[in-house]
């Protein structure tokens, strides 16, 4: 394994020039993934339609991808990227992997490539769930990154199956009768384990060392590795500039999306998130930091803590039940081998 410092000093293939919102967690994640993949192997990225795609590949205005200002003479530092349709990034990655492997089998390729796919949660677990699970099911030796902002952010912040209960999205608006998203999120972590993934993780760059270590392990996995990256969305979650990492950390610690790490045959672990609700930061603090949940909580006069609004106490109680179930679920999944 590479050291944190060593990776931090590498050249990322995700460079300045994107039009992602300032403070976007996707940008932070891609910059870090770009550094980890600068490991001496040529990288091919497949990218699904998402903020990360339309905001980074808009030729000729912004093309944020590439390694170095000039084409490297060293083939292993060259870089390729492909976007097809919304949902196809995992399938494309599998195809690149297969061609690389077949050419290697024939002795026609001496320098096999590493393959990374990125999708948003809309592309991966809504429209693209079928493709995602089947790529995992076929044990394709690729690394799948899913940037989870719990909405279709690129198209206007609509609901996705990863959305938290009671979140306000543009298609689950809040009114007196409607307290936001009425659905529970899809258990995509469990689905990926069940489909046969070799490594399943949920971690954001807010846990910086863990994030880099996870991506590095994922690249070395002999089967499909999938990393869900909680990605607070400054525009869709509606929070203040400079809060991205704090909210990501708070979301993980409070149980909304705990850091989770699992390997086939070895089991896993939940990190930095206690099973005991009393030992976690209150979920109200996480909710209060984003206007998508402001219909649920308000500041308590005098203490400035976030508490449930009196008319939404039932919804907050249900949300807390879901959060506890979410934490319990991950602890139980960690016991699987």
């Amino acid at each position, binding site marked *: 394994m590479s050291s944190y410092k060593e990776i931090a000093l590498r050249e990322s293939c995700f460079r300045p020039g994107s039009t992602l919102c300032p403070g976007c967690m996707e940008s932070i994640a891609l910059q870090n993934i770009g550094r980890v993949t600068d*490991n*001496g*192997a*040529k990288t*091919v990225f*497949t990218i699904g339609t998402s903020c990360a*795609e*339309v905001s980074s*590949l*808009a*030729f*000729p*205005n912004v*093309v944020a*991808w*590439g390694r170095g200002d000039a*084409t*490297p*003479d*060293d*083939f*292993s530092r*060259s*870089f*390729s*990227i*492909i*976007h*097809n*349709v919304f949902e*196809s990034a995992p*399938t*494309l*990655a*599998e*195809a*690149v992997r*297969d*061609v*690389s492997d*077949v*050419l290697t*089998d*024939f*002795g*026609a*390729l*001496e*320098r*096999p*490539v*590493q393959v990374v796919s990125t999708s948003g949660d809309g592309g991966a677990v809504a429209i693209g769930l*079928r*493709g995602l699970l*089947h790529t995992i099911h076929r044990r394709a*030796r690729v690394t799948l990154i899913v940037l989870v902002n719990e909405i279709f952010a690129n198209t206007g912040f609509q609901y996705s199956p990863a959305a938290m209960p009671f979140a306000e999205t543009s298609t689950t608006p809040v009114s007196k009768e409607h307290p936001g998203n009425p659905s529970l999120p899809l258990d995509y972590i469990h689905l990926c384990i069940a489909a046969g993934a070799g490594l399943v993780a949920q971690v954001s760059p807010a846990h910086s060392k863990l994030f880099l270590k996870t991506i590095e392990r994922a*690249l*070395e996995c002999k089967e499909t590795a999938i990393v869900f990256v909680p990605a607070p969305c400054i525009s869709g979650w509606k929070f203040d500039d400079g809060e991205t990492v704090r909210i990501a950390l708070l979301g993980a610690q409070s149980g909304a999306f705990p850091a989770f790490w699992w390997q086939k045959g070895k089991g896993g672990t939940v990190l930095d998130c206690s099973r005991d609700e009393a030992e976690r930061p209150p979920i109200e603090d996480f909710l209060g930091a984003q206007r998508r949940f402001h219909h649920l909580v308000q500041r308590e006069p005098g203490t400035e803590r976030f508490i449930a609004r009196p008319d939404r106490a039932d919804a907050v109680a249900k949300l807390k039940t879901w959060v506890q179930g979410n934490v319990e679920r991950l602890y139980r999944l960690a016991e699987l081998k």
Partner: protein
Amino acid sequence: MSVSEVKAGPLPHVTTPSGERYEGAIDLSRVREAHPSLYDHRDEITADGNTAAAIATLQMWRCVIFAGFPITPSTKWIEYVAANLASVPGGRRRVKLMEAEHAVADYMVGAAASCRDLIFPTATSSVGLDHMTETTRSLGASGLGNVMIIDVYRATANFPLCIEGDPSDTLAHRDDGFIQICARGKQQIYDTVLQAPCLGMHPEIMTPTMPGYYGIKDSHRNARLIVEADRDIHEFQDRWIFACPLPGLINGDTAFGSCVTSRHFQGFKVAQKRRLDNVLDFLPLIGSDFEKQFGRPGLRFFDEAGWSEDGAADIAVVGMGPDFGTFESLRERYAKQSGLKVAGIAIRLLTPFPRDAVRERLRRAKTVLVVNQAHHTGRGHLTLDVVDALSDLKAPPRVVSVFAGLGGADVAEVTWERMLDHARESVEGKALPPYAFFHEGVAL
């Protein structure tokens, strides 16, 4: 992957309009040398159309991954390929079974972009092709001429469900951007599949191909087939398939499928259309070279029947597919009985439509009878193209449009005779409705 697996170091690279290409990153001579030959010499076998298509793809050294949806409706192409590959000890070529037709198309994008000098074939039909639509439309614009979707023509999904062959699927996909070539008969299927990549991968074309043939009538019925030696096929294809001048994902420093601003979108689409138009220049050359090497007709814009040297005809039939053979078999008799000059063409190149060649062939006909075998909201897919082709003429022939053989029904001799009688009324000056339906010798 482990970094220890990687061989580092510089490679020479060249600059292209699509990024940098590393020379020598992939050594395809290793793939060519390892090709397991299916036929060492010309042979004569009995095969159905799906088998003919499968044999052709297996004989190409550039085909190393065969992706497909396991049930590929109306085609057992993938089953034949799988059985063959399983029988080769130590074989390194692979069958890739995907969960859906859409996934097959997506897979083809990734594979073909990875190495632009290999050929990635699949076969599908009807709803399978429809299911691929989102990605076939990306592929059509992709420049990936090394993708070949073999389409077994079958009624596309509609009410009522019909599982027999008519070309409504391929005709519904004429704007996908593929080069669409219709084959009739097992030999033409085999020969067309062998030539299609030469066309699609030509540096002036770089457009994916969709050779196709009628379901059931050609896909499932057996006939004599001459197969060529693998080495001769390789010699032919290597004369036409050059190393792609643009980088792939593996041998390049490049990007595919990027978002572009509207200004660049215009240029991209103009280039796409011009590459497709170049098919009209190169198809005859490839077809002629094929005929020279193998002694059989190669790719053509259309097959011809009954034309006199001066090109004059009272009735000129325009059709496609195996039912045109029924017309050919009765043409002479009908002409003799009616006292009319009767000729015809069976369209082979559907997209891009060979407008100029069709116009020149039909310009001296009095009446053109266009036989459409697929549902269309207007006068018929072929009719619209033929009318457009003739529109440049000062005194164009009258165009009589008919529908027959819908849902894969045979167009029987009596139906052909009745349709010709219908066209004859036009020759005699009678005004006819915009279109008419015929079946079993009756106007419906």
